[in-house]
């Protein structure tokens, strides 16, 4: 049971890293995610059912996500509309496209066919099957996280971070912000779609509605992670995201499992997620207010001490 939460959380964490790239690193409020997550699931599922191989399926899923991200960034760049609107446009169009990819159906099962999650128990035969799934997923997450960490330490990755913090600085350095936005959004949605491709294999089906509410869930996980520890190092930031994603899934599991005591149904979980985000925002705000009040108090104390020391020096002289 516990392993299930971890597998769920780990698959979800790859998507949250994607959301992190758009929201936190690029400062681009991107809703493409709700569509590209399902796109990833759909593409992977269709590739697997047509026997293309598991690696190809995940690669194709990521590529489809990258295309979706590129389209959002291009709409934003060329038509000069806010990122939010560009994302909504792509997301809306993707709903129709996803159903096309799934061959006109809203739901395609992956039954009696080999997927990563039917393979893991044989690959990691030395433990029982639920632990094998956990190990396999963990390895994938470590691989993806390491790649993302490395990317954001390259010159290109750092310049994408700088773009999110100060676009004028990037322009002043002779770099086209449009190109950086396309690269960042493609990467973000590639990860999101990859995560969708994994989830489809784990739960054994792809669904056109799979992505609904993903952005908010991703934000909730990012915010939970931000409570854990403070850092400006990318490897810690992504670690924080992975932990936040697992904690989020655990909270939702608790809501589903014990919620019926207080008459909670699965359909209430969205409401809970939203409230979780709002509470996180309130806590973050009071914390920053408290820390600045604290800093002010300390500064006043320091200046008083300096004043006293000066006076003493005066007297001594």
């Amino acid at each position, binding site marked *: 049971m516990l392993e299930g939460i971890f597998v769920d959380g780990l698959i979800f964490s790859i998507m949250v890293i994607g959301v992190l790239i758009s929201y936190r690193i690029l400062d681009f409020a991107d809703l493409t995610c709700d569509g590209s997550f399902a796109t990833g699931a759909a593409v992977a599922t269709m590739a697997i059912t047509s026997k293309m191989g598991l690696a190809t399926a995940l690669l194709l899923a990521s590529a489809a996500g990258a295309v979706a991200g590129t389209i959002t960034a291009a709409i934003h760049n060329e038509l000069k509309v806010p990122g939010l609107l560009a994302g909504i446009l792509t997301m809306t169009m993707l709903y129709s496209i996803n159903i096309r990819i799934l061959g006109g159906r809203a739901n395609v099962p992956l039954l009696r066919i080999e997927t990563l999650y039917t393979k893991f128990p044989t690959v990691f035969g030395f433990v029982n099957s639920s632990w094998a799934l956990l190990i396999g997923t963990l390895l994938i997450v470590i691989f993806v996280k390491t790649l993302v960490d*490395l*990317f954001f*330490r*390259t*010159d*290109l990755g*750092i*310049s994408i*971070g*700088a773009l*999110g*913090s*100060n676009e*004028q*600085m*990037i*322009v*002043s*350095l*002779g*770099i*086209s*912000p449009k*190109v950086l936005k396309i690269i960042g959004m493609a990467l973000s949605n590639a990860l999101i779609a990859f995560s969708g491709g994994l989830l489809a294999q784990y739960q054994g089906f792809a669904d056109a509605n799979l992505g609904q509410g993903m952005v908010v869930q991703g934000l909730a996980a990012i915010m939970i992670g931000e409570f854990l520890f403070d850092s*400006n190092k990318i490897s810690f930031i992504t670690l924080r995201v992975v932990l936040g994603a697992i904690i989020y899934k655990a909270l939702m599991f608790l809501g589903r499992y014990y919620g019926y005591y207080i008459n909670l149904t699965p359909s209430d979980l969205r409401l809970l997620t939203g409230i979780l985000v709002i509470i996180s925002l309130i806590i973050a705000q009071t914390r920053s207010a408290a820390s600045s009040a604290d800093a002010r108090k300390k500064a006043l104390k320091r200046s008083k001490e300096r004043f006293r020391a000066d006076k003493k020096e005066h007297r001594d002289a």
Partner: protein
Amino acid sequence: MLKIEQLSKVFYPNTVNEKVAIEDLDLNVNKGDFITIVGSNGSGKSTLFNLIAGTYPVTGGKIILDGKDVTNKAEFKRAFTIGRIFQDPTKGTAAKMSIEDNMITAHKKGMRGLRMSLNSTMRTHFKEELMQLSMGLEDRLKDNVGLLSGGQRQALTLLMTVLSRPKMVLLDEHTAALDPRNAQIVMDLTMDFIKRYNLTTLMVTHNMQHAIDFGNRLIMMDGGSVILDLKEEEKRDLTVAKLVRMFKSIKKKDYASDEGLLVT
């Protein structure tokens, strides 16, 4: 270095808010020139900088930078030649990133690849560069830039701008937001860098004394055109009082001609 011909800029053309910000402006900047630009608010100084840098498209005229016509070139392409520092110290640096990440981004111009340039040699190099600022920033490479004071950020911006080796710098009142002591430090650093790297410089300032003390040429702008252009020899024995008198006499001439129009 920079040649501006018949430059004009009209904001909101054909509307009630139509405003002519720059009118038939000609300017020829030689290599190695250090020009100070003065003028009241709304005289077109900042608009001129925005047009040179490419932030706004021009309405008419030509801008020739380093021998190339850049009139219709994107801002990021012109940035290869131009380094620009704004009045707002937060505009030149990325607050959410560490000092070293900021510096690695600024150490060259143009698109980046997948190399990881930030290594120990780079860090020592950055420390040496930061040492010149004598602000103790060399020990804070991993700190976020958002933690620095305005003076420190502007000094860092200056350092980062020269790090990327532009041929020309546009200084847009870059010490105006700082307290007198920090303004002095940043101004001293500016002069030091300009001399060392032989940068062609345009500096907008509201500090008349600065405008007189620095540079080899002084330009006064009003109503979107250059109304006064003093070369090195004329500038040498200039005082603030003289400059203000010149400004007033030019303005009065305008008033007189305006009155003339009304009477006849």
